[in-house]
């Protein structure tokens, strides 16, 4: 059973320990919040929720914002119903 109510901001906060993830419109990549370590952790945590995103099939720009990541998950869940 896939949990469809993942709070991405909260998940990112757990990974980055920085309240900046809650700032509206923040660029997660340029700000350094989503660095390689956080990237690995984020994808691993999503795997725990049954969401297997493939880095090679993602436009990196979609990872820049919380909204972009939420959309990726939304699209994944739609495709894998």
């Amino acid at each position: 059973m896939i949990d469809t109510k993942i709070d991405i901001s909260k998940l990112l906060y757990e990974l980055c320990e920085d309240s900046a993830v809650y700032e509206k419109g923040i660029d997660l990549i340029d700000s350094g919040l989503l660095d390689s370590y956080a990237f690995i952790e984020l994808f691993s945590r999503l795997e725990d929720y049954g969401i297997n995103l493939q880095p090679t099939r993602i436009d990196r720009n979609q990872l820049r914002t919380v909204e972009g990541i939420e959309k990726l998950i939304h699209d994944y869940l739609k495709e894998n119903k």
Partner: protein
Amino acid sequence: MLNRIKRVVELNPNKIAYKVKNNYITYKELWDSSNHYAELLKKQGSSPVIIYGHKSINVVISILACLLANRPYVPVGLCTPSYRLKKIITITKSSLVLTDSGISFANIDVCNLEGLEKYRECSKKIIHNDIAYMIFTSGSTGVPKGVPISKANLHNFIDWISKLKPLCSYKDVYVLNQASFSFDLSVADFYYSLCNGHTLVALDSDLQEDYNEIFELLSVIDVAVVTPTFIKLCLLNSEFNEKKYPKFKCVYFCGEQLEVKTVQKLYEVFPHLNIINAYGPTEATSAVSGILITRDMLKDFQLLPVGEVNNFATDIEIINDEIVLKGKSVFRGYLGNYLGGYYRENGLDCYKTGDIGYIQDGKLYCKGRKDSQIKYKGYRIELNDIEYHLNLIHGVRECVVVAKYNENFVVKMIKAFVVVDDDCHVDTIRKELEKYIPKYMVPKTIKKVDKLPINQNGKIDRKALNEL
């Protein structure tokens, strides 16, 4: 070492020696260009040469040209701010920066390789030097530490890695270079590849941000010299497996702690992969030990071994739980007056690594540090180095920098806690810090606090900080 490369050139003149993106150079072209520029370098001066660049073909020619000219090379990555580069120039007493970057400094010649032609009419200098290269690492006093590695050290390392199983059995393979040339993990892929007639394929920094390019590149690779973090990134892709990447036969890890679960995942998708876990500080020429990680080790070990006693590149002893290196791999002390862990004993160069380790059943283990030095993203960082530069920033009154570890004691982030003036903002601190230290050293999180917690002994309470 140069004779070894020369033999490779004679045997494989038209073979590709080095490839980055769509550019490549054959062994003969590399040898001829390097010799050409070496002659000019002998006329320019005799001091160490700063090579400020990333992974271009010119950087590789520059390295070989310096070795041929008997001038130590100092690889400095483009992520190094000019403030730090100036310090390195001062410490090395260098008179030349070779770069394609377009930077300029007063009182020192900064040019690209072609720019050396202006020395054509000068006479050659007499150069006596047994130093091959100098790599700079983070220093606890805020000043980067220069580690000179002699040609004898390097020769010993090349001899060791070229005999390391199964690397010694490969012929005509493609070797992946992931690390920047300023990070000594690259010493392993660079010299293993060029001295054994393989083709070195560099992963450009731009590519590291493009996952599709990484996987396209990996499809031609036989042997990867990488950090565990890099492979963890690759493992996120479910198509990274033996069926899709049948050439991929060996991975050499160094620079970070290798976790059991990373090896487990790798074996799941590459059942026939050879996995080498290597260990060594910059002060002892990239690596002094390495061991093939077998499946049996995964069952019994929480901590993976980093070497075995019958296969060390130099003498290794455990003294008061600390790994101490002695002999052929060990450098002759830092540039300048800093002594650190270096000492001489019975005519041997020795180095107290600061790594806590032990030997059990003939295998070497490393389980952490005695001090505040950390390994993060493969880089060696002194937390005091970051604190020193935070304290230089206007408005920062007090600070402390801590590393956060995951459950396997691998550093997952660097955090800074600062007490600042009211008008001092985190964004400003970050930007200022990037002027002083490379970006990989800048803490991921900089948190403003009213005061730093103090424990009963009057020291900073680091445990309490982690809970803030």
